């Protein structure tokens, strides 16, 4: 656990405290959402939960896919795995840093939304669970995307967008799940964002699609699955290197 905290602190210092990263985490999801919402009859208060979900998803999963490829290129990865920090601790550190960054960034649109829109927190526990578990699952997705067999950041970015954008489209963030066709409702459970957004919606007093416990359990399952797969891929790669 201590090694994970050390790795997380290093990640925050090196990769997250950069103005472009912070800006990207906030601006990109906002404009992405507005591109879909403007001109459609979306109540202002419901904008908040969707923007929160998108900000959380983007910020928690944005940098994680790049950390390992950068570190492998700089050979700091090799140096790190030679230290007593286990692979599990390194991955946990990466997830922790991304989760803290994602949840922290998401607090800004939350405060802004509460101030300038009629949105109100009606179920604090669900909101906090949505923020924390969502951050965990999305950060774990980022770490999984970093475990692929390439060190070229451009390839990782392409893969990252190839995976993350479809997850947004099927998640019900842009179009509520009760308004999508039946096939959409079948596909939606495949995206972790579906459950994160659902919990955040519940926290802000909007209708949830799943029970809160299902959302929470699904996010924990996604986080665990992503991390286990990331660990397996890293081990396989390091054995072959």
């Amino acid at each position: 656990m201590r090694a994970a905290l050390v790795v997380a602190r290093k990640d925050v210092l090196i990769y997250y405290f950069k103005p472009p990263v912070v800006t990207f985490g906030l601006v990109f999801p906002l404009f992405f959402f507005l591109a879909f919402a403007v001109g459609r009859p979306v109540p202002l208060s419901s904008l908040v939960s969707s923007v929160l979900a998108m900000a959380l998803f983007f910020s928690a999963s944005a940098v994680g896919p790049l950390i390992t490829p950068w570190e492998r290129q700089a050979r700091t990865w090799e140096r790190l795995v030679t230290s007593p920090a286990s692979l599990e601790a390194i991955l946990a550190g990466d997830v922790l840093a991304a989760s803290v960054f994602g949840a922290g960034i998401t607090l800004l649109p939350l405060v802004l939304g509460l101030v300038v829109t009629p949105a109100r927190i009606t179920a604090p526990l669900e909101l906090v669970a949505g923020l924390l578990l969502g951050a965990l699952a999305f950060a774990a997705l980022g770490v999984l995307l970093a475990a692929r067999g390439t060190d070229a950041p451009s390839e990782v970015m392409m893969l990252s967008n190839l995976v993350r954008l479809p997850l947004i489209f099927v998640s019900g963030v842009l179009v509520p799940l009760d308004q999508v066709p039946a096939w959409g409702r079948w596909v939606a459970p495949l995206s972790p964002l579906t459950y994160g957004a659902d919990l955040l919606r519940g926290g802000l007093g909007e209708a949830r699609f799943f029970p809160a416990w299902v959302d929470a359990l699904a996010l924990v399952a996604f986080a665990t699955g992503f991390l286990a797969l990331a660990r397996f891929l890293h081990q396989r790669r390091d054995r072959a290197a």
Partner: protein
Amino acid sequence: MPSWAPDAGRLAVVTRGLTKRFGRLLAVDHLDLEVRRGELYGFLGPNGAGKSTTLRMLCGILEPSEGDGHVLGIDLRRHPERVKSSIGYMSQRFSLYDDLTVEENLTFYARVYMVPRAGRAARLQQMLRLGDLVGRERQLAGQLSGGYRQRLALTCALVHGPEMVFLDEPTAGVDPVSRRTFWALVRRLADQGTTILITTHYMDEAELCDTLGFIYQGRLIAHGPPARIKAEAFARPVLELQAPDPRLAAEALAEWDAVEEVVRAGARVRVIGARQDLDAAALTAYLRAHGVAAEWVTAVEPTVEDLFVSFVDRERKARVREQLQALGAPPA
């Protein structure tokens, strides 16, 4: 229980039949290695010889395909995590976080290696002094010159006070002055009792080691103190000559069956004999008989590069010599 027990009091590293395969590629081939505690051991070999793979197995980050090994008495197969805690490792290209300062890099590794908080500040100061980095604590690692980066990487490897340090080509790409300073530091560490296993391409650096191990195509082809290897394993005369036309002299000598290898270095020609009886007089006479003038011919000590190349298959000699010289070894 292990099938064999190393003399952990005397030996820092012992391997028996250590082997690593990557698919069909045999990277390390049944390596039997012994490194005594407190010695400076030079691990030499051209690119792809298996040096780094061996190091990665000894550091506990790569599982051997076959064989066993102990580092500081710890079984590599059973307790690789314990090995990692007990050793220091400096990888190629220094592996520093460029966006962290000198102090932040050191602090990071001190924390990763669980250096107790109570003595951490004093330990960091000690490391800064050791690496001559005092006054540069707030400088970003990415802004340091090669020599300072190299010393910072070494201090990061030493921050937890390991008994043994693995240095993987630590002087690659560093200027000669920094290399010399670095070697003085490494020598001092070894003299103070730290066991050091260092890989290098630079054959002049190899002369500074207590013991050398030559690895080629994954096999340890020679092992021992440089002087002993020269005396026992390299029982051939080495001669050097200067000629008005060194190319002509080299071409003439290359045809002679008394000569094993001819290496040109500027105006000089270095000749490795194939027979014990080759001496300056015989060589001068041969050249004269072939119409080639020589200003002088003299017997010289074999260099580590001569040793290394002599262990390599005859048909690969020229290629290996070229490779070594391209990598920065001084001309023979």
